[in-house]
């Protein structure tokens, strides 16, 4: 009985897992100053979620990612400082703060910051990240080069 439960648990875990990609680095497709619009499909435990991402970058190295669902609702807002520190500015029931900090910020650095990670470049605008628990397919659908508002990269004052 105990063995069958263990087998069931392993099968359940395996169904949700994807073989992680080997760690590597890719050249950032992001202009020094600019705003990228991304469309991503997140696959976790066999379920898929389509997300929109808006990633701003400053020449100083700060990055700010806002993730929304189809109709515009913000699911996550994360600031990555030039020194790599991560601040979660907004989270949601779908994307929790710990998840944003641990995985989303790491994935941003992987694709856009030249950090090593389980990433594969499928084309100049198409990337895949595969970790043990999820797969993320990211397409860059729009690039707007140019300086972004400075406030995007500042830690917001507490209300």
């Amino acid at each position, binding site marked *: 009985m105990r063995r069958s439960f263990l087998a069931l648990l392993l099968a359940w875990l395996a169904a949700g897992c994807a073989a992680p990609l080997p760690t590597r680095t890719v050249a950032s497709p992001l202009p020094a100053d600019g705003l990228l619009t991304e469309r991503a499909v997140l696959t*976790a435990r066999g379920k898929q979620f389509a997300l929109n991402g808006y990633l*701003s970058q400053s020449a100083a190295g700060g990055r700010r990612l806002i993730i929304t669902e*189809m109709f*515009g609702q913000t699911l996550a807002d994360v600031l990555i400082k030039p020194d790599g520190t991560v601040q979660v500015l907004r989270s*949601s029931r779908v994307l929790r703060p710990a998840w944003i900090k641990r995985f989303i910020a790491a994935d941003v650095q992987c694709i856009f910051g030249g950090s090593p990670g389980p990433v594969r470049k499928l084309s100049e605008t198409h990337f895949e990240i595969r970790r043990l628990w999820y797969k993320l397919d990211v397409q860059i659908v729009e690039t707007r080069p140019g300086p972004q*508002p400075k406030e995007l990269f500042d830690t917001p004052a507490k209300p």
Partner: protein
Amino acid sequence: MNKTLGIAVMMAALALALRAEEPPLRPVADPRPILQDLQRKMSTLNTVCLEFAQERDLKLFAQPLRSEGVMLIERPDQIRWETTAPFQSILLGNHEAVAQFERIDGKWQKLKLGFPQMLRRVMEQMSAMNQGKLDALTSDYTITVATGSLAVLTLTPKDETIRSMLASIQVKMLPDYSATREVVMNEPGGDFTRIIFKNERRNVKFPPGTFDQSAPLDIAAVKTAITHAP
């Protein structure tokens, strides 16, 4: 130079004058007769095809984030919401099921949806709003109406948790309630999403496959069929 400046000043003055003449919105004390009238008018619609421009206005960004697409509705319950730029995505819904397709590397991929019930509910509410079935929404929203140069229906979520994410939905219609012009989703912090509808076509005949949740007909083929229908 002076002439150009003069024209610009005149146009600005004209715009101000026109704005000044726009009647301010007046809240309606009892919106029920208006909602019934709206539902009666919209009930004559069997199908509707609308193009939309969606603007996500975040205080942080200097410019709104834009996308565009098409919305198709067929009574009693079929809806297709398709984003055509800057990415391609199709959402299809009816009372029984919902499906989503994403265009990845030139191929349509059907998603294995997480939270399909939630998405189906959103699609149902969108369909109800665009068919004037607002009484179906009164369990979830408090509805108020204001009239003026446009009729504005404001839907405020009754659920506190939802209200913490979505302050209100404003549906802006022509003053005679004959068509929806704009939907604005306001968030508590001041950010909002505006969906502007245009090129509305009513009672068109959609070709087979338009709402097929396994292999939806390409939107170009749908548009061609609508345009060439007798």
